Structures are given as C-alpha cells and as structure tokens.
C-alpha cells in the first residue's frame, strides 16, 4: 500500500475513533449523571436511548449557523478549530496495543501535552471573539485556569518518565510489565502514588470538568466561552471537550495503569491481541470516575482554584519530582 494511502486511512480511522468516542461518551455522561441523580437519562431514541447522541449531532448539523454581527469574523470561526484539532492530534500517539497506534513517536508524552496546550488559546479566542461580556469572562477564567494547571500536569508525569527512562509511550507501557511479589502488577501507580493524584487533579482541571469547570459554570455563565456559538461550531467544542476527557484518561492509563497490559499475562499472545479491549475498558473506568466526580462535587471558585494550583499543587509537584529522583537514584544505585 502506498504510504499516502496508509496515512489517509489512519487519519480517517483516527477521526472515526474520535467521533465514535464522542458519541459514546456523551451518551455515557448523560446516563451516568442521570442514574447518580435518581433519574433515567435518555431512553426513548433507540433501545435504552443509544441513538440519542447521533440524533443530537444531526440536530446540531441542521441548526442555523449564525455569528453575532459584532463578533470578530475570523477569530470566531477559528476558535472551534483551535479547540478541536489539537484534541484530534493527541490521538496520534495513544497506543492501544503493541501494534495498534497511529504514529509511534519517540517523544509521545511531550507531544501530547504540547498539543493539548493549544486548547486554552482556542478557548480564549472563543471568549474574546464572541464580543460578549459573559463569554469574555468565561474565556479569561479558562485562560488562567488551564495555563496554571499545565505545570503540575507535566511535573507529575516526570516521575513516570524517570521510572521508564523514555518519553515514548510504548516503552512506558512495556516497562510496566511484570509482577511484584507474585501478585501486584508493576503498574506505575504504585511507586508514583502521589504523582498519580497530582496528575488526576491537573487532568480534571485541564479538561474543564467539575470541580474545576468555572469557565463554563452553568449556573453562572450558561456556557461560558461558548455562549454565542450554535450549531456545529458549538458541536465541535462540545465534542472536543469529551475527546479531551478521553485523551486525559488514555494518557493516564498509559502512564499509570499499564496501558493494554493485563497483570501476569504480558507475553501471552491472546492477551496482547485483546490489548485494545483491555485498554478501552481501563480508560472507560477512568472516565466513569471522572463523571462520578462531576456529578457529585460543587465547583471551586476561580481564585481559590488558581491559588490552589500556584500555591499548593506546583510546589508539591516540584517537591515530588526532586524527592522521587533522589529515591530512584538511591534505589537503583
């Protein structure tokens, strides 16, 4: 097959995965939140309401695509792309199994976080270009929040990189193979317990999930930065939010929970063939936990959130990196 065809097919597969994920995750969010809140959620469109999201997508596609007259013409159109495309690009390096990945980069970890740091630019752009004061407030909040929480996100990952000795996501997963004491999997969550919590909190904040969803606080700003968007432009940003969720959980699974590995069966051919399924199960469990948190906790105020990031999380993660480096050197010496 010509390399160009391979690239095109992989891109389409990635897009397909992103869209499918979006559809499944939106449905899952509505059902999970509903059952946590003693409700039922969608159950009319299709058996158990499974076609609800697809119909919602059709609805979004058929809506009038308008732009407020005073909104900045080009920035208004560019913002949803800047939110959506980096999210799509991050799918490239996620490894579902030793052979299933879109592109195996040597610097996978760096690539994912570098690409995801475009999202705050897009959000700020959306907030500014809407030319509406409430959207502006939402955009500015997102800017402060997401930039602040990128630092602990990266620092918490450094410990994993130190343990694995590489930025390549495939190598990181493979170095989590094996068992300790015969029954504990060698997943990085055990040595990196604090790092995992730092990563989890920072990932929640980066994906704008409750308790860190001040920039789209429903009871204050309706949809925050996306106030003036409708139709598929809004659909893009909405989809990007869920695909960010998937990417965060996928990266978290890869870094801390052994990716596609089943404990004890690392070299079993059948287990490796089932790798993608194992991976997706782990990721969806993580997403379920995020939705559970979303349906439970109140929202942290923006200044409390920022002071928590700058005064608590960043010093903590810096200290953790240093301490862990010292411990690792001592253990390996």
């Amino acid at each position, binding site marked *: 097959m010509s390399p160009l065809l391979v690239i095109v097919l992989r891109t389409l597969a990635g897009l397909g995965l992103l869209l499918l994920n979006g559809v499944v995750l939106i449905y899952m969010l509505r059902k999970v*939140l509903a059952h*946590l*809140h*003693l*409700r039922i959620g969608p159950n009319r469109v299709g058996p158990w309401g499974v076609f609800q999201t697809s119909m919602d997508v059709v609805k979004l596609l058929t809506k009038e695509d308008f732009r407020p007259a005073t909104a900045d013409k080009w920035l208004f159109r560019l913002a949803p792309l800047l939110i959506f495309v980096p999210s799509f690009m991050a799918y490239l390096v996620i490894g579902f199994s030793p052979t299933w990945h879109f592109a195996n980069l040597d610097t996978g970890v760096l690539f994912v976080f570098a690409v995801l740091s475009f999202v705050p630019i897009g959000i700020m752009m959306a907030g500014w270009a809407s030319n509406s*004061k*409430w959207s502006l*407030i939402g955009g*500015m*909040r997102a800017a402060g929040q997401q930039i602040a929480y990128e630092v602990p996100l990266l620092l918490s990952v450094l410990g994993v990189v130190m343990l694995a000795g590489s930025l390549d996501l495939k190598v990181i997963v493979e170095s989590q193979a094996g068992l300790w004491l015969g029954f504990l999997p060698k997943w990085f969550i055990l040595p990196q317990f604090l790092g995992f919590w730092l990563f989890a909190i920072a990932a929640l904040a980066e994906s704008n999930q*409750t*308790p860190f*969803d*001040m920039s789209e*606080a*429903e*009871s*204050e700003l*309706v949809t925050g930065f996306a106030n003036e968007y409708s139709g598929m432009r809004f659909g893009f940003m909405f989809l990007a939010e869920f695909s960010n969720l998937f990417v965060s959980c996928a990266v978290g699974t890869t870094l801390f929970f052994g990716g596609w590995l089943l404990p004890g069966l690392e070299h079993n051919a059948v287990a490796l063939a089932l790798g993608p399924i194992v991976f997706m199960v782990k990721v969806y469990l993580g997403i379920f936990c995020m939705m559970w948190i979303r*349906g*439970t*906790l*109140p*929202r*942290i*105020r*923006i*200044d*409390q959130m920022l002071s928590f990031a700058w005064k608590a999380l960043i010093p903590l993660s810096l200290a953790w990196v240093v301490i862990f480096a010292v411990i690792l050197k001592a253990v390996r010496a």
Partner: protein
Amino acid sequence: MTDDRLRVTSEGPIVAEGRREPLLLPRGLRRVPRGVDELATEHLIVNMGPQHPSTHGVLHILLELDGETVMAAEASLGYLHRGIEKLAESRRHHQVGTLLDRADYVSGIHTELAYAMAVERLMEIEVPEKAQWLRTLMAEINRIASHVLFVGTFGMDTGSMPTFLYTMREREALVDILEAVTGSRMMFNYVRPGGVTGDLPGGIIEKLETFLSTVDTYLDEYDVLLTDNEIFGPRTKGVGVIDRTTAIAFGMTGAPLRATGMDWDVRKVRPYAAYAQLDFDVPLGSQGDCFDRYVVKTAEIRQSLEMIRQLIAGVPEGEYTAKVPRVLRPPAGEVYTAVESPRGELGIHLVSDGSDLPYRMRLRSPAYYNLAVVDEALAGGLIADAVVTLGSLDIVLGEIDR
C-alpha cells in the same frame, strides 16, 4: 434629553445619525473608577440579566466589574410585577387567597394565612382549635418544602448537581401530601378567613409518618454533600457577610437575620395559629455569612420536623372552620398581621372600608427587604460570590415584584 436609566447597554441612546449619548448609569455604577482620570482602565458593566440560570427568577442585577471583582451592584426589579395588590382591590376577601398564592409561590399557605388572620382580626372571628392545628400543620409542611427547595437550589448555585435532584425527591413527597389535603400542588387556596377548606383526608397521617421516618437519612446525606464538603465550605464561609446592624437597618427578617445572631422569629415573638403550644428552638448563626444562612435553614428543617411530630401526636377534635357569612364585610379599619414565612416576616396590611372588597391590601414581602442588602453585600466579592450570596438570601421574585 431622556433619562434612559433603564436601557443599560454598552453605549447610550442614539441622539443623531451615528452619534450616541454617553450612558447614564444607575446610581453607584461607573465605567471609570472613581477618583481616577480618563486614562485609567474601564470597569465592565455587566447585566446579570433577567434571564439567568441562577438568579432565582427574573431578577436583573447590574454589576460593575473590575476583572472578576464586583465593585458595585444594583438590583433592578419589576420584571415579574403582576399588580397583585391592585387586583386585590377588586376581589372579595375569600377570593384574595387565589392572588396571594401566586405572590410567594413557594410558600402559599403562609401568605394565605397572613391574609386570613388579617380579616379575622378585623371581624373578630374566633378560629376553632382544629382549624388552627390544620393551619399549623400545613404551614410547617410548606416550610419544609420551601427550605428543602432552598437547599437544592443553593447547592446548584455552588455547582453541586446531585443535591438539587435529591431535594426534589423530598419535595415530591411533601407536595403530594399538600395536594391530597388542599387539592393543588402549589396554588393551594386552602386557608380562608374562618378556618380552612377541609379536614385531612384519610391516610395523610400515615403518609406523613412514612415521610418522617425516611427524611433524616436524606438530611444527613445533604450534610455530607454540602455542609461537610471541603469545596462548599470555602465557597460560602466568609462570603456575603452581613452584620447585624446592617441587617436590622435594611429591615431583613427570617434566616438571614437569624444568621447574624439576632433572635427574632415571629412564631416566638408574636405567636399565631397553634405555635404557642409547640416546643421548638430557633436556630441562630453568628457570622452572618452565606454558610450561616444555609446552616440556619437546615437546622430549621429539623425543627419543623420536630413540630410536625408533635402535631401529629395529638390531633384535636372539632370543626375545621368557623361559621362565617358567605360574603365577608369586615368593619372599616386597618390591621397589620405578620407570619413567619420561610423567607422571613411576611405581613399583610389590610385597610377595609366596610365593604366586601378590601380598600387596600399591602403585602410586606420579606424577600424584598432581604434583597435590598444586595447592593452592599455583593461589592467586594467575585462574580461567583455574587451568585452564592444571592442564592443564600432565598428570594422568590413573585413576592418581591408582586
């Protein structure tokens, strides 16, 4: 030059082709900070508009923002004005209840009760004991329903979604009981001058007992979800502090006043209905912040549950209403009666000229006076604090705008 104070957009009114007058802002709000020359940064004037998910009705608040900090705030009312007091001048006394149900739509029994007491005081009607008992029982059920709605919406204001749905479960049980007794879930039309419209149907006491046996677990769950939560605490503690002097100066009553430490509950100070025979405490706060207002209300829910237990323990005998003429003609005079509604002291000032229509009925709505403090209480906080403070005052626009 027109005084366009009501049109608050970024620019002022158009006076000529392509030219706009500078905006005349309501008192207290400036686009350029006070005492600073024209080269300084502007403050944003934002409409926390009539349409907003968390202003508890069609409330319009203008905020002058410096970044996220609120420098000044002004409430702009009237979006739900329906002329209730004027309409009351053309309704006979037993029909006025239908209007008053719709004033404070969350606590209809209390508003009807205040009016019925006003007419009874003018006509010197003696209400039988059973009727007083029924009135008190329904009033306390309505109080719990209203407070539980407050807990849910206040949680929602801080972002806690589950509390809202769980409190709706409690409210469903109570509203079902209210519907079984009065005939309607919200517009009760139950308390009339002389008594009430009907006795309890069969099975209500059992429904109440079922409710009472399960509600304590649920109240503890709300404590876990909100009161003891590490996120809710910093959101509400120290936020929207109103000290006692300010509260009394503005005429605040109800939970916001008791949260400042002032012991004033109309049920204790001027007992009415059957409250003199009930044994209950009045919970007080100390700091006057949003957290104290919330805690006072949850404590009041528990006190109301106690009162209901005492009430159903001893059901009196008797008639559910006194004999009153079909057309009520109170003698000329005026009277002011007050009840403790879930929002505070709700008063009816009734002026009668001896005919079958009230000459003037004025509703002293507690939420109106509680809301008046918002101009001062919001300044200095963030927008998020503004939302939380508004939510903690437990306002209902229906009675504010009437």
